[in-house]
């Protein structure tokens, strides 16, 4: 039998790997990949707590589905923004996008 601690440790580790990706990568698309990892870690946590808490109360799964919808919306808008910035500045390195207008 798998205790709850294993799931929580796994989701904490995945969250922190995503955090490292967001803080340390230069490419803007890679930063978004890190954010996706963090959202998945949160989802694992939610579903694990649903299962190990009271599986007859369906709130955990509903929360996870809302997180799915929010992640999809955020990725769509984020990638649209990155592509639009690339068209104007020809770069996706986050450090180089540092002037508003000149």
């Amino acid at each position, binding site marked *: 039998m798998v*205790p709850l601690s294993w799931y929580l440790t796994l989701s904490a580790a995945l969250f922190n790997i995503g955090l490292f990706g967001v803080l340390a990568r230069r490419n803007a698309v890679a930063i978004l990949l890190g954010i996706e990892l963090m959202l998945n870690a949160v989802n694992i946590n939610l579903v694990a707590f649903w299962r190990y808490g009271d599986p007859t109360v369906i709130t955990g799964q*509903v929360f996870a*589905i809302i997180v799915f919808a929010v992640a999809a919306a955020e990725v769509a808008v984020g990638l649209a923004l990155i592509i639009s910035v690339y068209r104007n500045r020809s770069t996706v390195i986050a450090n180089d996008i540092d002037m508003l207008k000149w």
Partner: protein
Amino acid sequence: MDFMQIIFLLCAALILGAALMVVTTRNMIHAALWLIATLFGVAILYVLLNAGFLAVVQVVIYIGAIAILFIFAVMLTRREMRDQGPQLNNGWWMAVLISLLSFGGLFLLFTNWSGFGKMMVNIPAGTDTLRELGSALVSPNAFVIPFEVASVLLLAALIGAVYVSFRGK
């Protein structure tokens, strides 16, 4: 070490290994493909947690739409076919430090929580989680308002994405 534990350990190895490859590989297409491996591992984990509907929705939404969006975005934002330049920041060692500290802090918080070693309870026979999920999402006593707000959010994201990237002919 029974069957479920072995499957969980293999799954966790896949998820964490693929996630590490996502954040450290130079080639962005490879990073997107490793993300797909991670998402697939998370879907397997949902099946282990008796959330079958969430597992299939994970494959359809994350792998079938979001990962493909990522691959398209990577292809549309490359000037040449080869990789260019270093792919970690100047302060990447600080990022490692912050991640390790954060993991340590979370782990400490968890071990001090009383329910940390909880075991799985059986789902009472006859509960149809799929049916309950469906009625919870549209029932006025349950979660119809967050559901509708999420729909409006997706509509706003759709219009926003089209507007931001519209070139205007």
